[in-house]
């Protein structure tokens, strides 16, 4: 198991980091423009936050209502306590469909449960149809960004991937690359037996599952095959369609700077007998995976997240060390909170330290989730274990000195005396000081 430090050492020198910075810069400037064009944004953020809190305050009630609503419109609901259960439920649903491809539109929940590998191991052909997901599936790498999985890949790299894997001549022209993916995927869409999507929001009152996409692949995935499986984190509910409207107002603006995403699908049940199109069956899998264990704790508000990715774009650490450094399907500041909270401290206890606590994430969060507060809270949890980073232990001595004024003043006087004789700059320090002088000097002689 690697540490964040080790992964970040690779991340900061990754030649793809420049592309990641360009991509996040683009998202940021689009978001800034969209927010400045929308006078009600601040009010909408407050309303969106209130809606999320209302849902979390009575999550089991809303889940029950949502379940009843889905069943009323002809769908079925499955509850999965953890990843293993979710994988089991889904593999049973698709068990008799070996032979026809399973197509997927972008879904963080299915990344979280490692669905693709599981289905492939069972003999299914699984094809990601979101362009970014399609690219990283060819590259066999995890997503680097919550909404733009291949954000750090240049068109040249993508052209090379396509030419290596799809047997097409190399091109780096974006429209041609798009066309290659379209033609390749179109044929798979028509053969597919199952479509698996994520869920941006579930509407408790109507039983609707809402997907927000920009490519139209989501709509094809949920309508072309005869079975649609929607995988939803248990917290992703809104009470009714009026609340959904508020969430949509802030989601697209925060994510991509759009007023509304190109395709907002409100799917309410499978095809009715008198309708020509749509799947015969809609199966909604509700994933808990320790989410409900956060209710009523200091971490409850992280469940308000609507996965817009704005905090990633704003985060200096994410932008300079990249998404893969987090070693989790959820990177960035949200990932630094979610990963230890959902997947445990043993593996992710160092992620809360991967932050300068600059607060840029809170500033852009559409739900005003106080990520810096929770990063600090999680550091307190980590500090109470054997996982506290070794350098951090030095802070204990510093603090002990800080509670003894006489010793402290002696230390200050000593430093002051040493600073009359030492070098102008210290360029190499041992022990915990090595971290400092590995990348910068220390001003010394007065």
């Amino acid at each position, binding site marked *: 198991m690697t540490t*964040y*430090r080790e992964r*970040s*050492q690779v991340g*900061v020198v990754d030649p793809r*980091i420049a592309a990641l910075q360009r991509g996040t810069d683009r998202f940021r400037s689009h978001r800034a423009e969209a927010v400045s064009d929308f006078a009600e944004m601040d009010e909408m953020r407050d309303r969106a936050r209130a809606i999320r809190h209302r849902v979390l305050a009575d999550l089991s009630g809303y889940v029950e209502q949502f379940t009843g609503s889905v069943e009323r419109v002809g769908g079925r609901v499955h509850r999965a306590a953890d990843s293993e259960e979710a994988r089991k439920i889904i593999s049973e649903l698709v068990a008799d469909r070996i032979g026809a491809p399973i197509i997927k539109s972008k879904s963080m929940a299915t990344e979280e449960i490692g669905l693709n590998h599981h289905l492939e191991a069972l003999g299914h052909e699984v094809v990601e149809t979101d362009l970014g997901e399609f690219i990283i599936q060819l590259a066999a790498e995890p997503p680097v960004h919550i909404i733009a999985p291949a954000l750090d890949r240049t068109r040249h790299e993508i052209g090379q991937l396509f030419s290596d894997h799809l047997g097409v001549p190399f091109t780096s022209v974006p429209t041609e690359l798009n066309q290659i993916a379209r033609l390749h995927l179109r044929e798979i869409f028509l053969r597919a037996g199952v479509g698996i999507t994520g869920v941006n929001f579930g509407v408790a009152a109507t039983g609707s599952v809402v997907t927000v996409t920009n490519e139209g692949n989501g709509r094809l995935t949920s309508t072309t095959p005869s079975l649609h499986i929607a995988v939803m984190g248990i917290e992703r509910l809104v009470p009714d369609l009026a609340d959904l409207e508020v969430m949509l107002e802030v989601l697209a603006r925060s994510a991509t700077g759009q007023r509304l995403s190109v395709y907002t699908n409100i799917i309410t049940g499978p095809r009715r007998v008198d309708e020509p199109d749509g799947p015969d069956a809609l199966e909604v899998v509700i994933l808990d995976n320790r989410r409900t264990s956060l209710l009523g704790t200091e971490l409850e508000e992280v469940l308000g997240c609507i996965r817009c990715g704005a905090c990633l774009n704003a985060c*200096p*650490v994410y*932008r*300079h*060390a990249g998404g893969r*450094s987090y070693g989790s399907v959820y990177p960035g500041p949200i990932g630094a909170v979610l990963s230890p909270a959902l997947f445990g401290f043993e593996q992710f206890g160092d992620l809360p*330290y991967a*932050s*300068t*606590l*600059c*607060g*840029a994430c809170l*500033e852009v969060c559409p739900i005003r989730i106080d990520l810096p507060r929770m990063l*600090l809270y*999680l*550091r*307190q949890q*980590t*500090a*109470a274990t054997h996982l*506290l*980073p070794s*350098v*951090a232990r030095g*802070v*204990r001595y*510093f*603090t*002990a*000195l*800080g*509670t003894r*004024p006489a010793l*402290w*003043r002696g*230390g*200050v006087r000593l*430093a*002051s005396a040493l*600073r009359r004789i030492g070098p102008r*700059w210290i*360029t190499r320090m041992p022990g*915990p*000081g090595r*971290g*400092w002088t*590995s*990348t*910068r*000097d*220390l*001003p010394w002689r*007065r």
Partner: protein
Amino acid sequence: MVDVSLFTTCLVQGLYPQVIEATVEVLSRAGCQVRIPKAQTCCGQAPFNTGLLEETRRLATKILDDLEGSEPIVVPSGSCADMLTHHLPHLFEDSPELQRRALAVSQRVTELSSFLVDQLGVTDLGARFDATVAFHNSCHGMRNLGLGPQAAALLAKVDSLRLVKLSRPEECCGFGGLFAVELPEVSAAIMASKLADVEASGAQYVVGGDASCLLHLAGGLHRRQSAVEVKHLAEVLASR
């Protein structure tokens, strides 16, 4: 005369004592009688940001004794002022008496530029600084205390000073306290972006209100043999 106490901060005591002299000078010019409480050490941010809650409480309890009184407490650092203003009272949620005292202290704390401009209404301190300057607005002060405009108003009144804009003034410099030593590669990568921005601005000096960010930037500038230097806002305001 306004009586004030100066909370000097640990970093300034250890590595930038000239900032203490400059802050005293600036506050005196603004009509203040400055007292420096002798037993003070650190604001507690180091253990707090590390997650060491008990250690932070021990330090914070001592701060309550050190800063007993009723006069304003001026801090030449946005992040230390933020620690004392926003976090100190929350450390004592299970002890009403300590919490009451912590609240009383936190309400008396003001960062230097905010104290001068927002509380005293002073912007012209008769300073002269003949140089091109870029201002680095440190994150905690900017986002949690609304700092930035005060420093701009103060710098605008400094004779001969030419203020240039950074292209990304609200971007973190990558210091982050312990972060700088624990994840030095990431810290340095973020710093490199900031320093590139500073160098492109044509500034001869990066001026800021937090010695912590300045220490980090100074170390980075020297390592890359840049001609750009750092100055604390108080030093610029104290110069004639």
